[in-house]
């Protein structure tokens, strides 16, 4: 029923051009578990084994805090909430 690929079709976002979360890719390459890739409820994180690279897309971030809590690799060069007025915009929920 929930397909996170279609997330932007039913949850509203005011996307900022600038990402509120910035990764330091070297830390992700060295990480032993990459819990962010499975625990993020919006699937914002994807690890490419071929390129040995973590990609993060901030567009559909629900600002839930999961990645901030599960990452123990100090991979965030920046982790903050989007600046005022940007990011997820719940209408009902």
């Amino acid at each position, binding site marked *: *029923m*929930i397909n*996170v690929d279609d*997330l932007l079709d*039913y*949850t509203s976002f*005011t996307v900022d051009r600038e990402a509120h979360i910035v990764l330091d890719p070297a830390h992700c390459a060295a990480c032993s*578990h990459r*819990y962010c890739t*499975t*625990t993020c*409820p*919006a*699937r914002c994180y994807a690890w490419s084994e071929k390129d040995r690279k973590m990609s993060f897309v901030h567009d559909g971030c*629900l*600002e*839930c*805090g*999961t990645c*901030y*809590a*599960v990452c*123990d690799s100090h991979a965030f060069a920046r982790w*903050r*909430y*989007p*600046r*005022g*007025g940007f*990011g*997820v*915009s*719940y*209408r*009902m*929920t």
Partner: protein
Amino acid sequence: MKRSFEAIVVGAGPAGATAALTLARAGVDVALVERGAHPGEKNMFGGVLHRMPALERVFPDFWDRAPLQRHLVKKVLTFMTPGRSLNLEYETESFDRAPYNGYTVFRPHFDRWLAGEAARAGATLLTRCTVEGVVREGGKVAGITVLRGAGELRAPVVIAADGVLSFTAASAGLRRPRFDPGQLGLGVKALLELPKEVIDDRFGLVRDQGASREFVGSSSGVRGGGFLYTNYDSLSAGMVLHLDSLRRSGRTPYDLFNAFLAQPQVAKLVRGARLLEYSAHLIPEGGYRMMPELCGDGILVAGDAAAFCYAKGPNLEGINLAAQSGACAAEAVLEARQAGDWSARRLAGYRRRLEATFVLQDLRTFHRAGELLEIDRLYGDYPELICDFMDRMYRIDGAPKQSLLKMGLAMARKKVGTANLVRDGWTTWSTI
């Protein structure tokens, strides 16, 4: 824009808005700072707003004023295995009249209303302001900095009510810099549209009566559970997953959630519904053990930011604790204002006030309840055992029956073992 106030409240959720409302009504020049375009825009929860004693004191006709969906008359706890379930249903007519015991609400509507009440009482509501951290002066908190644009705002006292991650409390050095995933839950939720009449039929409701349904054993072995709450013409369906258990499982929250929705007992309740919104948030489940320092010089912490959440008992409570803590924080600020002293020692009246209410009393009473939820058998073996027992009790197949108690004990021994039974029984007894 005005840059200095008598008090600043960070976060216009239930804790912050209640604090700002209380302060504004007492004539304090208070700013209520919110990062959303409007209060509630960033806020989600399962869906049940329990009775709000702190707000009923301010609004004796709370249930006529607040934007509520349905009032809850029916609570159902379900032990579930794929294809089988036992429901414990409690329904009381006394929950069907004011003062109601709980409601379903939409946060973007409810939080906006409450913050609006604070603004009407005289608080300065500043939206679209993401707070970066606190400003210090002579070792004391003296204000906040806002990301881009607004810059610095000054006040002799700040109430950090900016949610579970509280970067305000972190920058004031009141919470630990790292979180323990063992003390956090992840809530995921879908808002599902269904006609009111269909909801009334499926859940056995009339007028604006509501039902809350919680499910144990529905999370594919991951610690956690599912829920279904009735709004007026939609359902809040979701799961709360223990973050440490989730990460170790390697499963994704949406796959577990889809598996929950696909179980036949749940599927027939949500059949035909249209997905309106999907949301997620962390929950500070650690309670008493996770609490930060509640006050420092010129700062207090309230609501989720202070881990005032209690997801371990028979009810999943948070907003009622948040609002109560916001009111207590405001009262402590009023006391400090009278004395003209914003030191941590003077503001410690906040903790004394919390101790006198259900907030800290409940958190303390159930401070070990987490140990109960760490019993993995709760999410698989026990629901199966319960359903096996019910099956044997009700099944008519020509085989002779056994005495129920004897049969139950024998089944329990076989399924989980005597030692585990005794251990889990003791944990249950000593934690809740």
